[in-house]
């Protein structure tokens, strides 16, 4: 009550953060139960990155929720699962802790830790050979996990010790790596007028695609980039992204079908159900 007319003690740097401390506290309990939808989840994670006290609260709820698993009955999985798992280990690189000190002070939006982004951007512009080199870099799942997503992992990992969440979380990283590793993976890089480049990777076999964007301008808090699958039936949203330091990557939401085109538009924050602006790039497959 007494606080109503006071300015917020901690300014919220992020657009979608819940409004009040109370709302956040409610959301953190639901977060521990995985009872938030993707947008709400992302908002809570951004808030957690800024607030150590809230993070402690979230860890307690996560631990509490995990205990609820103890009330379910154990069920033996099919025996084949074990051997299938063991057979896959060699192909899967482990994520090494890049910097032991980092989780202690989680950065809100750490700068992408890819090696020398400027250099790679230059490579993109120079020609097919360099492009191939870049693709090879990307196709190594260890490299993408360690490089393209390391900063995000650090943030998420700092929150509750496990960071699978969000469009750049571990689940998404595994998906992205799976696309990049697919035997039939193809890619196409398009430069964007006004600077930057978008590379689409797709696997028809997996029915999935992902983009790596570099050098795109930040469109600010009131706008966002939106991805679209475009076919004869029209455009279907495949998720939104914002860039940090001009770069990010994203697994597209929805199924990829061969022949579909992928477009990027700038939309009002939160995205639009249908494109409202001309695409900055369209990549056909």
């Amino acid at each position, binding site marked *: 009550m007494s606080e109503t007319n006071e300015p917020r003690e901690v300014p919220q740097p992020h657009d979608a953060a819940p409004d009040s401390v109370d709302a956040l506290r409610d959301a953190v309990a639901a977060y521990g139960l995985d009872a938030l939808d993707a947008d709400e989840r992302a908002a809570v994670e951004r808030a957690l990155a800024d607030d150590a006290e809230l993070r402690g609260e979230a860890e*307690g709820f996560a631990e509490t929720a995990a205990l609820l698993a103890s009330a*379910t009955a154990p069920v033996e999985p099919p025996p084949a*699962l074990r051997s299938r798992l063991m057979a896959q280990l060699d192909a899967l690189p482990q994520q090494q802790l890049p910097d032991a000190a980092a989780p202690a002070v989680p950065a809100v939006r750490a700068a992408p830790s890819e090696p020398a982004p400027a250099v790679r951007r230059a490579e993109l512009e120079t020609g097919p050979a360099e492009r191939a080199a870049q693709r090879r870099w990307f196709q190594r799942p260890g490299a993408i996990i360690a490089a393209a997503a390391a900063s995000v992992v650090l943030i998420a990992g700092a929150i509750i*010790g496990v960071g*699978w969440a969000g469009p750049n979380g571990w689940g998404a990283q595994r998906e992205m790596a799976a696309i990049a590793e697919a035997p039939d993976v193809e890619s196409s890089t398009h430069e964007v007028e006004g600077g930057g480049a978008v590379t689409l990777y797709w696997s028809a076999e997996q029915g999935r695609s992902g983009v790596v964007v570099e050098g795109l301008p930040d469109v600010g808090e009131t706008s966002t980039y939106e991805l679209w699958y475009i076919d004869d039936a029209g455009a279907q949203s495949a998720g939104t992204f914002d860039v940090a330091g001009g770069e990010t990557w994203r697994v597209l939401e929805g199924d990829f079908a061969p022949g579909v085109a992928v477009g990027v538009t700038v939309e009002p924050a939160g995205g639009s159900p249908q494109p409202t602006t001309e695409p900055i790039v369209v990549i056909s497959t």
Partner: protein
Amino acid sequence: MARTTTNAGSGMLERVADRDSDLTAPAPVSTAEQLLTRIGTGDREAFGELYDQTSARVFGLVRRLVVDPAQAEEVTQDVYLEIWQTAPRFDAARGSALAWMFTLAHRRSVDRIRASQAARDRDLRIGVRDLDVPVDTVAETVEIRVEHERVVGALEDLSELQRECVSLAYYGGLTQSEIADRLEVPLGTVKTRLRDGMIRLRTALGVTT
């Protein structure tokens, strides 16, 4: 096994000996935390051991959420592959290994449900199965049984409305908005029940933050 150090600290030695004899009993040789630490260095044998110790519990949780057995198996596979990949990041100071694994399994299960099943199917399924506190009674070790009973007891101590919301969320995989729709109560009410319920559970289960 036979550690034959002789020094003045015999009390310590006895404790070590005691623990060794405990460990050579049928009980698991290594804790899940120890195994995860070894897995973090690429130890495949430790991974196999962790799988043997925990897979029935992880699969049990996943099966409860992802009803389809084939999909549940896929999710479980993803969970363990993620454990393998991310074990180097596991930090025992932040919580127990099992809690970490369950958290991971729950999140992946919920993501799978939301991605692959129509809301209608899920409603139907939950309508039949998941409204109540699970009353599964099987538990193969004393340790698991004790914990099981403690959790069931803590759930029973919630108000009925709190328990309903928490159960729909955790065992049904519903979002708070879906719960509000389903129970035909305002979203704010669901949020409050979830929060109050979780606070009570946290206290009852002795989780310190």
